[in-house]
């Protein structure tokens, strides 16, 4: 009964989504306010029914209802409760349902928070969001229904894929989808503005908090995925330039560009058509990612089971949504002109190059990801593109981006004043170079020329991000959330830069055969293989090793890597053991039993790798602080008053 209720709820949600899309897009033209006024009810109803559908699927998982095909395929009676719930998005069908639910949550948030915006504009925004919802609901009901029954029911389920039985991966999809789908808000705002043929600075102000919040979730989602890959996939790396990782990274880069170009459009009314294009592209790339992951066109570790029918459906949807938006763009964008000017030393100029470089970085990844497909399609034979291509190619636009960032943060709007900027720029640069040289040559044994450069850039960004807030506080000025959030996010980026640079240049690793009782030396550390013992988990049995790590004769960590065998899927799993500290991770993982009490072990010392996740976390926090800035939420009239007051307050101090 419960799965049928869920199925029925999805159908009702589809009908309401149709109402929302129809009323939203056609209502404002009809001139009859009742259509527009009905939209919030459709939004609310759709939320209730998608939530009900989610609830039904969760209930089926919790109650071990193995007559539901999706439940039988992705859980088992021995699976702990937490993973039975997260199994909901463990495979294609359920993750689509999650996608739809998240879209519904964003739509509700937009409906509530944007009541003060013009009614026709809001109707169109909700209409576009409704259209997206229709597409995904149709897709789910037609090709990927999670509520299908098995007849006869099976006695027990096939279990959740063991790699997904992990905390980070349980929360990674909701985070990532909240980010992906959140970009649909900026997309809908852009489409609505184009339909209305009107785009002013206030439009940018409305769009900014939504974009920034979506970006924060996307940041968290990507970081969680990378963290998971690091300790669970166990190769010891954290980014593999896999097509699926790239598919999530491209919208991130483009939405980062969008955040910055929105700032210019908000402040100066510039870059309007460019901002629109970025808003379209950001969400389009997340849709494209969905296509790449679920259609089987690319070879990837993370991809869902491939199904060409699904591929055709998503492709048609892409053509409709992205093609429609870009056609609208080709029609309306030429109308948007701005006569505002700026000087080369101005903030606008730096943000212009920020955008160009970020888009190039995204384009480089796009090119590398699609190249194998292009080569195949042109009959040119197989081609692989891996880290050896992506690493240097990505650095090419990103190094100048990081270098410009520190200078750009001090630049004023419109003209900028070189003389005033010189002192903080040169001061921070000198300090950063000195610190970098001291740290790199003092603390690390590294082999890459780029290491002192990357560390210096990171420190420079962090110092530069501190200059403005400290200066404001010293002068007794207020520190608005927008500025605070920006500084925090840039400090996060600085930590990320330092972390990636150091871990890439100064990691020590060794794959080796070690006998019980003997040890292996790695840099300043001694890894001693003490013993192995058998043990059992809730749904697996394991062999656990004990590896003691010594540093200067003292015990630095005791590691317990495991080789697990999950009972249901009978699969071997390698659980690496990691001792994490702020300045280094010690890593040990078991390979094969080589006989004679000897095992092959993978041992690593990874300096500063925690900076990578910590930096991403801080970036996310910065985004949230900035996205929740009150100034974005004040209605238009009140905002103008406040701006004048703010300018008056800032004036005399300047």
């Amino acid at each position: 009964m419960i799965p049928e209720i869920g199925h029925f709820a999805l159908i009702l949600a589809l009908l309401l989504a149709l109402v929302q899309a129809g009323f939203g897009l056609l209502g404002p033209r009809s001139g009859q306010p009742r259509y527009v006024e009905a939209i919030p009810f459709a939004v609310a109803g759709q939320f209730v029914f998608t939530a009900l559908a989610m609830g039904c699927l969760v209930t089926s998982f919790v109650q071990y209802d193995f007559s539901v095909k999706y439940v039988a395929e992705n859980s088992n009676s021995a699976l702990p409760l937490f993973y039975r719930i997260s199994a909901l998005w463990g495979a294609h069908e359920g993750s689509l349902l999650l996608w739809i639910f998240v879209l519904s949550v964003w739509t509700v948030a937009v409906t509530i928070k944007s009541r003060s915006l013009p009614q026709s504009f809001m109707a169109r925004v909700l209409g576009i969001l409704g259209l997206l919802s229709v597409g995904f609901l149709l897709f789910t009901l037609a090709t990927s229904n999670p509520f299908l029954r098995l007849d006869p029911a099976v006695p027990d389920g096939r279990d959740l894929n063991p790699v997904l039985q992990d905390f980070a991966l349980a929360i990674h999809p909701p985070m990532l989808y909240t980010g992906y789908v959140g970009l649909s808000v900026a997309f809908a705002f852009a489409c609505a503005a184009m339909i209305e043929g009107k785009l002013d600075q206030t439009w940018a102000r409305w769009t900014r908090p939504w974009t920034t919040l979506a970006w924060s979730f996307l940041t968290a989602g990507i970081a969680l995925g990378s963290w998971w890959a690091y300790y669970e996939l166990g190769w010891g790396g954290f980014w593999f330039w896999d097509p699926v990782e790239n598919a999530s990274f491209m919208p991130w880069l483009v939405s980062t560009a969008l955040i910055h170009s929105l700032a210019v459009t908000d402040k100066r009314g510039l870059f309007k058509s460019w901002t629109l294009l970025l808003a379209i592209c950001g969400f389009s790339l997340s849709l494209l990612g969905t296509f790449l992951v679920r259609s089987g066109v690319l070879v990837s570790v993370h991809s869902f089971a491939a199904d060409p029918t699904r591929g055709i459906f998503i492709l048609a949807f892409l053509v409709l949504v992205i093609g429609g938006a870009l056609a609208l763009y080709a029609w309306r964008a030429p109308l948007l002109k701005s006569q505002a000017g700026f000087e080369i030393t101005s903030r606008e100029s730096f943000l212009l190059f920020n955008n160009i470089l970020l888009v190039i970085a995204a384009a480089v990844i796009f090119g590398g990801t699609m190249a194998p497909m292009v080569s195949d399609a042109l009959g040119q034979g197989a081609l692989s593109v891996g880290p050896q291509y992506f690493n240097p190619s990505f650095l090419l636009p990103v190094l100048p981006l990081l270098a410009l960032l520190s200078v750009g943060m001090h630049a004023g709007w419109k003209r900028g004043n070189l003389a005033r900027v010189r002192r903080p720029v040169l001061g921070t640069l000198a300090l950063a170079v000195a610190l970098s040289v001291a740290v790199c040559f003092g603390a690390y044994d590294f082999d890459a020329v780029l290491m002192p450069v990357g560390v210096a850039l990171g420190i420079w960004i962090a110092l530069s991000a501190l200059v403005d807030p400290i200066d404001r506080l010293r002068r007794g000025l207020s520190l608005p959330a927008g500025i605070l959030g920006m500084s925090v996010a840039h400090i996060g980026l600085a930590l990320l830069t330092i972390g990636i640079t150091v871990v890439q240049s100064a990691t020590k690793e060794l794959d080796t055969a070690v006998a019980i009782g003997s040890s292996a030396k790695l840099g300043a550390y001694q890894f001693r293989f003490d013993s192995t013992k058998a043990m059992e988990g809730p749904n697996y049995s394991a062999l656990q090793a004990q590896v003691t790590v010594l540093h200067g004769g003292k015990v630095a960590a005791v590691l317990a890597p495991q080789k697990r065998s999950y009972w249901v899927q009978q699969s071997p799993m390698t659980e690496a053991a990691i001792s994490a500290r702020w300045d280094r991770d010690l890593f040990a993982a078991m390979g094969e039993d080589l006989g004679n009490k000897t095992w092959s072990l993978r041992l690593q010392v990874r300096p500063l790798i925690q900076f990578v996740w910590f930096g991403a976390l801080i970036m996310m926090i910065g985004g949230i602080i900035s996205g929740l800035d009150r100034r974005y939420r004040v209605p238009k009239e009140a905002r103008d008053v406040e701006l004048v007051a703010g300018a008056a307050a800032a004036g005399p101090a300047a």
Partner: protein
Amino acid sequence: MRRLRACLPVLALCASFAAWAVDPSPPMADPSLQERYLTLTHELRCVQCQNETIADSPVEIAAQLRREVRESLLAGKSDDEIREAMVSRYSEFILFKPRWSARTALLWLAPGLMLLAGLIIGWRVLSRRQQLLASDPSTVDEETPV
């Protein structure tokens, strides 16, 4: 499905499970050979677990391909000869780092070309905006960065 492909249990090993190889062979005596060995094994794509390098893949064929690399290095073959030998059997698919050729030229040049194009476009926008500056009466609060 037109072709019933490959032996499923082996594929499943890499497709869904986090088992990976730990290369148990002792480092080569010559450190420069060991360096080249690590570089090459991280460049070669495992033909079975197609998203892993042969250095990381848990399947037997990856171990055998590593053995092939090791023996070729000891036999005095150059890196390019070893790559060529692999390509002649498994096609360019096996190289994670595409070799420079007419076919891959655009791929390798793309980042540089895009950077160049970006600089030119940026420069043109900038000079247009500088010209507009004279006729732009708008005032901005220079202090507030966001």
